[in-house]
Each structure stands twice: as C-alpha cells, then as structure tokens.
C-alpha cells in the first residue's frame, strides 16, 4: 500500500516545492519507490526544481483526460531510479483536475510505488484541495513569520474537515510541521519567532527545521534538489527530516547560533 503525503502551506513562497523535491528525493535515496506530483495546474515549477523541465512531454491533466497513459507522462529522475516526476499541466483550465481523475491516477500509482508526494500549489483553490484530499500524511511548510503561521493554521482546519479521511470518518491525516527559512541569529536577537513559538501556536509534531541557506537558491538554480547538497546545512536538515518521517528519532540540528570565541564576541566578525 502506497502512502500519500501532501506538502502544503497555504501561503506561497515558503518552500513547498523545494520541500517536495528534497523529500521525494530523500525517500528515493533510501530505496523507496517514490512518485512526486505537481498539482500547480497552470504554474508548473516542480519540473524546474527537479531539473527535468526539458523532458516533459505529457502531464498530469493529459493522463486524467486519457490523452496519454501514466507511464508516458512519468519522468524518471536521472539521479535515482526510484524517483519519478509527474509534471503539472500548463493549461489555464483550473477545472481540469477532477476528483475522479486525481483518484484514478493515485490508485494507479499506488500499485507500484511506496510513497506518493503531492506538491500543493499555494492558496485554497482546487489544485490545493485536490492535492490534500486523498492524503494520508501532511507536511505543513511554515516560515517563522506571522502570515505564514496564520495560513498554516487555516490549512490545518481544511485538512481536518475537507479530506477523504475526514469525510469518511477515518483516522485523521497525520500532520507534521516543517519550519523553513529559520535563522537562529535572528531568533537570538528576538527578531524572529522561535521553533517553540511556532510549535506552541500550531501544536503540531515538528518533523524538521530547515535553516535559511544559500544552498537552496543554488540548488534551484541548477535543478538539483537541495537534499543532494550533502555539505549544506539545508541538505542535512532535509535528510534528517526524511529520517524522522521514516520513524528515526533524530535530534533537531541548526537551531542554535554557532558559538563564537570571546575575541569575536567583543569585536564582531
């Protein structure tokens, strides 16, 4: 049985696609057959972050409409044989994602994959609600910033009421908080909400904290999921997050400002 995970947030620009790309690559690297689906119809971007934009022939909506079969649309990742990308359509017709159509694609994927990662668009329109409807687990990506935290809370409300699990009175979706763009320096200065602040407000299980990192822009520039940049803090934090998702008890890293010597503390640097 495949497990379906939605990466969601409500607010745009907080790192959903970066997370979907890193998380799916991490699961694939651990040996699980993983598919990652872009639900952002009209604004396809996961292909760019995954570095497969020039290999897109058919897309999600083509499969739903029966214009292509799933195997024609799935793009196998060049770095991992376990990872496949299903790109979003660039059509402007938002109605293209039908519930039956999405269900059909997910059911077919579930036959051969261990994990299906759904990269949700921002907002609460159809793409976002379809991405979460069939989910078993949700990764709520949040920045330590007021509008992002508020939107995440709104998404938790929607997850709890408008999903298949909620409608069928099944066990609720497991929800995890992923705090991204975290800056321990600014937290220490009292300029940024801390991990604990956000956790207290949202009361969610913390699956990871991704520090603000130059590596994320470098990774998206070159179309390589940041988790493959093993030297970077962001890459390591995503690897930890994948481990925690798989049930490993790993301490959170990169939450503190690295300690400086007395000389640098007094004279800056």
């Amino acid at each position, binding site marked *: 049985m495949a497990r379906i995970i939605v990466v969601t947030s409500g607010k745009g620009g907080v790192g959903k696609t970066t997370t979907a790309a890193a998380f799916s690559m991490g699961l694939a690297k651990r040996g699980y057959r993983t598919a990652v689906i872009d639900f952002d119809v009209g604004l396809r971007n996961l292909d760019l972050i995954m570095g497969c934009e020039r290999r897109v022939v058919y897309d999600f909506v083509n499969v739903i409409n029966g214009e292509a079969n799933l195997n024609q649309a799935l793009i196998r990742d060049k770095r991992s044989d376990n990872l496949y990308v299903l790109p979003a359509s660039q059509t402007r017709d938002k109605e293209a994602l039908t519930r039956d159509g999405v269900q059909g694609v997910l059911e077919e994927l579930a036959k051969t994959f261990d994990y299906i990662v759904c990269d949700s668009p921002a907002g609460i329109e159809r793409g976002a609600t379809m991405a979460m409807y069939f989910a078993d687990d949700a990764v709520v990506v949040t920045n330590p910033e007021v509008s992002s935290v508020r939107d995440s809370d709104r998404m938790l409300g929607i997850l709890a009421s408008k999903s298949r699990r909620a409608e069928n009175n099944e066990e609720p979706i497991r929800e995890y908080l992923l705090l991204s763009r975290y800056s321990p320096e600014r937290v220490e200065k009292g300029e940024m909400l801390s991990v604990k602040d956000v956790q207290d407000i949202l009361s969610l299980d913390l699956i990871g904290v991704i520090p603000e990192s130059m590596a994320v822009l470098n990774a998206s520039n070159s179309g390589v999921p940041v988790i493959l940049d093993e030297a970077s803090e962001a890459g390591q934090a995503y690897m930890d997050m994948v481990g925690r998702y798989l049930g490993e008890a790993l301490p959170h890293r990169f939450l503190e400002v690295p300690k400086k010597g007395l000389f640098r503390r*007094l004279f800056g640097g």
Partner: protein
Amino acid sequence: MGLLDYFRASRKKGSAAVARERLQILVAHDRAERHQPSYLPKLQEELIAVISKYVKIDRRMVSVSLERGEHQDILELNIVLSEGGTSASR
C-alpha cells in the same frame, strides 16, 4: 556582533514577542470560529432583527457562541443593551 550591539540588543524587546502575541490571539479566535456550527451567523442576524423591534441595540453588542462540553453543549447568547448600561445575558 560587536560590544555595542550587545548592549543595544539587551535594551529593546524584539519584535518576535509582538508577533507571538498577535498570532496567539488570532489563531485562538480563528479556531473558535472554525468549530462553530454553520447556523450561528444566521441565528445571530435573526436575533438582532427580533431584538431591534423592541429595543435599540448596537449589532456589535450581540454575540452568539456554542461551547462544546463533554456531556453537553452550551449555546451562549450575550446581548448588551446600549442605553442605560443594563445588560441581559444568557
């Protein structure tokens, strides 16, 4: 961070504390609203209409909420009359 910044940082309270307070209030409010049954806004409108027939009231002074308990739910109506300072509740 230099020596001067050290003193400066300890003097002022950071904006994160303000953010935390604002969010706590906002999220609590949003959550309370989310768990309310959908008929409440309409009930509130109709109550305002009925009461307005008899007394002059400020519509902001009528609140309706449902509190869910373990054994019973409490529907709470709070109506504050604008003139004379008298208030009737529940």
